């Protein structure tokens, strides 16, 4: 144990004062010459033991009370929740530092970011330890344990980033390190804003890690420095998509972005588009402009202030470039800007395979309704002819019929999906289903005469069935579905029937996505052939798949690495030197552009509650510190309160023992008086 005021400990001999006072008191006793000593000795023989024991206990309590008071004034620091028992700072401290983008949010007074505050608190706590234990740093960027010899270098090692964090993986690294660390007490210090997306509390990794820590011979204590309090108002802008397409003969770039407001934010902030050295406001978080669209709020009705935008801008067909959308600087400067890049307008090639040749007559015009205007082309292939070479320059594959069985075809489709392609599957009208990606078609179902399968719900904010830029929804509720063959397996429902079955589902595979439609554009199956749903859906699928044909990439900061490890990565956004591994921006590598943005999950304000945190760590010794305490550098917790409480308890016990003794004696003297009165 260490003390903040060690000079106070010179007063420890004061704890002998009660003993001295007791001895002085004994010297003041009146002396009486006594003859009947034999009776007195007999009487005191029995009560002396108890009385002496009581006296000793009272003295002991008083001595301990004075010692505890002196210690309390010395402001002891403890390495664990039983600091006195542990007897000092730990031998090893493993520091898990969250450097995610959300840690750049400012604290209450707005002058310091959470990361800076955490650094200050940790450095202060480490300095107060005196003798430096083995310090091991695991930050959210590297995820690897490295030894740190001096707490002073933490500021240099733990700069701001636009990355996300995986606390479970960091804890895993910490546990792996402790398994090889030297024996003795160890502590895991975690500095984080407790963002749920970083902690992943439902991960099965946590219970296993806790069990490993419990089984270790080291006494491991977990301390969490939580910087989860709301700061100043904050808006975060994030681009979810940037697609090139051609509409009405013009080459355009469509941006899909979201502006998320923090819980304490209710203001309306403008959204600015920066492109080709020009900046203009394209919308506001609370406004509706002709060029912008205001979408519904997020799926959580309690999360207010999330606004989705789609904005189109005209770009030259063969142009490549970059831009950014931004909101004014506020509580977190790292989430006010999101980048996009675009390449030359790609030619969207759609590959069609149909078990039923009649399908091609509908699917071909649906996939490429105006080839000249939309820069689309369609190629019909037999299912067995689908190969890598055919799909290499394709954006979309529409597959109607039994799932492919040939390994080469399956491999080609998977590779296509893996590289960002989109495949739309439609069921076979009859016969076998086959399997693909552990999914299979169910049996053919026919609606009772005079009835139809009604589509009750679908995703309108984004995806194949989203509203148009002008806000018009697709008429899925008017779709007549007489027959269906629903997909069976684990996938995400994009649209569902009134009975809960899946009309259109999707499954991500690699960078691409596969869609599964449960009906066919045949008169005896549905009214898909009228095109009101099928055409826009296929157009959007082609557009989405066409991003794989672009050299411009979008990447999440912290997860992207160039294909060539030695390739030179040059920042081109004009914001000076940057490290693509930790900073968002626009980079050029191997001749093409990459927009590196922070993970959109960093904008989600959901935090872990202390009870959840306690549940996460289970039976491990665990302490939570809020950043209010951190401001005074008390991560290495002070023990003066427990010392003071202990002193009060000792004094109370001494008082009780002394008063019990007096009460007992008074009762003894009162009893004979009562007997005499009664007599």
């Amino acid at each position, binding site marked *: 144990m260490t003390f903040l005021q060690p000079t106070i400990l010179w007063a420890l001999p004061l704890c002998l004062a009660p003993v001295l006072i007791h001895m002085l008191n004994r010297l003041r006793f*009146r002396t009486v010459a006594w*003859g009947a000593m*034999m009776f007195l000795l007999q*009487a005191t023989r029995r009560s002396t033991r108890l*009385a002496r024991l009581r006296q000793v206990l009272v003295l002991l309590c008083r001595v301990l009370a004075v010692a505890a008071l002196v210690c309390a004034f010395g402001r002891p620091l403890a390495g664990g929740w039983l600091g006195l028992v542990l007897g000092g700072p730990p031998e090893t401290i493993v520091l898990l530092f969250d450097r995610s983008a959300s840690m750049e949010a400012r604290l209450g007074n707005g002058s310091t970011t959470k990361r800076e505050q955490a650094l200050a608190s940790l450095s202060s706590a480490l300095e107060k330890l005196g003798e430096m234990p083995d310090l091991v740093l695991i930050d959210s960027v590297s995820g690897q344990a490295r030894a740190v010899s001096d707490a002073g270098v933490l500021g240099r090692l733990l700069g701001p980033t636009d990355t996300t964090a995986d606390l479970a993986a960091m804890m895993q690294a910490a546990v792996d390190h402790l398994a090889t660390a030297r024996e003795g007490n160890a502590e895991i210090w975690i500095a984080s804003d407790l963002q749920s997306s970083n902690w992943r509390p439902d991960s099965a990794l946590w219970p296993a890690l806790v069990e490993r820590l419990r089984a270790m011979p080291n006494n491991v204590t977990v301390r969490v420095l939580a910087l989860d309090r709301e700061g100043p108002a904050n808006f975060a802008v994030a681009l979810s998509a940037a697609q090139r397409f051609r509409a009405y003969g013009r080459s355009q770039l469509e941006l899909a972005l979201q502006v998320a407001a923090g819980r304490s934010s209710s203001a309306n902030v403008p959204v600015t588009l920066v492109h080709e050295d020009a900046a203009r406001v394209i919308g506001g978080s609370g406004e509706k402009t002709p060029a912008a669209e205001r979408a519904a709020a997020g799926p959580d009705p309690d999360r207010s202030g999330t606004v989705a935008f789609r904005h189109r801008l005209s770009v030259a067909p063969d142009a490549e470039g970059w831009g950014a959308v931004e909101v004014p600087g506020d509580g977190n400067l790292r989430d006010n800007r999101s980048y996009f890049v675009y390449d030359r307008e790609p030619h969207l090639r759609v590959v069609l395979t149909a078990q039923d040749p009649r399908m091609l007559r509908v699917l071909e015009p649906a996939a490429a309704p105006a080839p000249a205007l939309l820069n689309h082309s369609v190629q019909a292939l037999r299912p067995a002819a689908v190969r890598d070479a055919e799909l290499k320059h394709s954006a979309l594959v529409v597959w109607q019929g039994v799932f492919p069985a040939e390994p080469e075809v399956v491999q080609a489709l998977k590779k296509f999906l893996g590289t960002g392609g989109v495949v739309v599957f439609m069921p076979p009208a009859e016969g076998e289903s086959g399997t693909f990606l552990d999914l299979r078609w169910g049996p053919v179902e026919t609606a009772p005469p005079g009835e139809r399968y009604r589509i009750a719900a679908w995703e309108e904010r984004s995806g194949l069935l989203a509203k148009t830029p002008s806000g018009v929804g697709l008429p899925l509720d008017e779709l007549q579905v007489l027959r269906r063959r629903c997909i069976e397996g684990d996938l995400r429902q994009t649209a569902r029937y009134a009975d809960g079955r899946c009309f259109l589902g999707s499954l991500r595979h690699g960078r691409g996505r596969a869609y599964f439609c449960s009906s066919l554009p045949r008169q005896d199956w549905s009214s898909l052939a009228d095109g009101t749903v099928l055409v826009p859906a296929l157009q959007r699928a082609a557009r989405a798949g066409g991003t794989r044909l672009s050299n411009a990439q979008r990447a999440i900061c912290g997860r992207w690495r160039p294909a060539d490890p030695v390739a030179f990565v040059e920042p081109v956004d004009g914001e000076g030197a940057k490290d693509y591994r930790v900073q968002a921006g626009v980079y050029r590598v191997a001749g093409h552009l990459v927009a590196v943005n922070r993970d959109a999950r960093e904008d989600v304000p959901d935090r872990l509650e202390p009870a959840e945190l306690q549940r996460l760590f289970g039976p491990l010794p665990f302490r939570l510190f809020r950043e209010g305490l951190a401001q005074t550098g008390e991560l290495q917790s002070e023990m003066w309160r427990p010392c003071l409480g202990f002193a009060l308890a000792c004094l109370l016990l001494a008082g009780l023992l002394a008063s019990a003794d007096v009460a007992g004696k008074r009762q003894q003297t009162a009893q004979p008086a009562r007997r005499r009165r009664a007599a």
Partner: protein
Amino acid sequence: MTRLKRNQRVVKEGATREFLDPHVLARLSRLSVLARGLVEGTFSGRHRSPHRGSSVEFAQYRKYVPGDDVKTFDWKVYAKTDRYYVKEFEADTNLRCYLVLDCSGSMLYDGGRGNKADYARRLAATLAHLLVKQGDAVGLLCFAERVVRDVPPRASPKHLRNIFDVLAEMRPAGRTHVVRILHDLAERIRRRALVIVFSDLLTDVEPLLDCFHHLHFRKHDLAVFHLMDDAELEFRFDRPIRFADLESSFKLVAEPIGVRQAYLRSLAAYTERLRTGCREFRVDYRLVRMSRSYEDVLSEFLLDRQRTGVRRR
């Protein structure tokens, strides 16, 4: 020396001693110190003798055995029964009294009314005066760890002066070994006598009762004045006190409030056992509180003896 002259000398001796109050002596002089049982004196006196002698007081009939004096025949009984019976008469003798005085350190305890040693001195001196005045022999044995002074019993006024001198010079000190002293005394005294013990009896009760038994076995008349101060009997202290033993250098710090009940229980058990044992061995036991005047104690003692003793003819 006539009786009057002897008494005058006795009175004169007593008047000069501080532990003798002439007024008390005057008030008690009407009472006699009587032995409860048979005693063996050297002279004729007022006390019953175990031996048969010439006296007016008829004792009993006995069958004639050859050698008996014909004068003692009861002819009336012969006339009635046609058998020979002789009359026996009580023989009176004088009393031999031993005053056994505890001179141990514990007798110095003074509860505010004078110490126990002075009280015992008064009792012993007054009794000695009365005994000599009535013609009985009195001796004095002062003891502590061992016999300090031993004055054999005599009946003369001059001997009384010796006793008073010894009483005046007596300085209590040392430990109490009353058990060994009484056993020795029981062995030493050949003839039946009155033994009066003045002590606080601060020793184990069972060995003490053995002494009493020993004396009783020797057919002595034993009276015990158990002297205890009121403070010793009631133990009314309220603050922590360092108790210093009067018979040694031992000191004990105690909180009287906490030990009083246990002290009183020990004392009560002791005195109850003592009473029971004394009753068993026909010891005239008297617990004397120092707050009570010695005159009351003595008059009660003498009156009790008179009620139970043989009246002088």
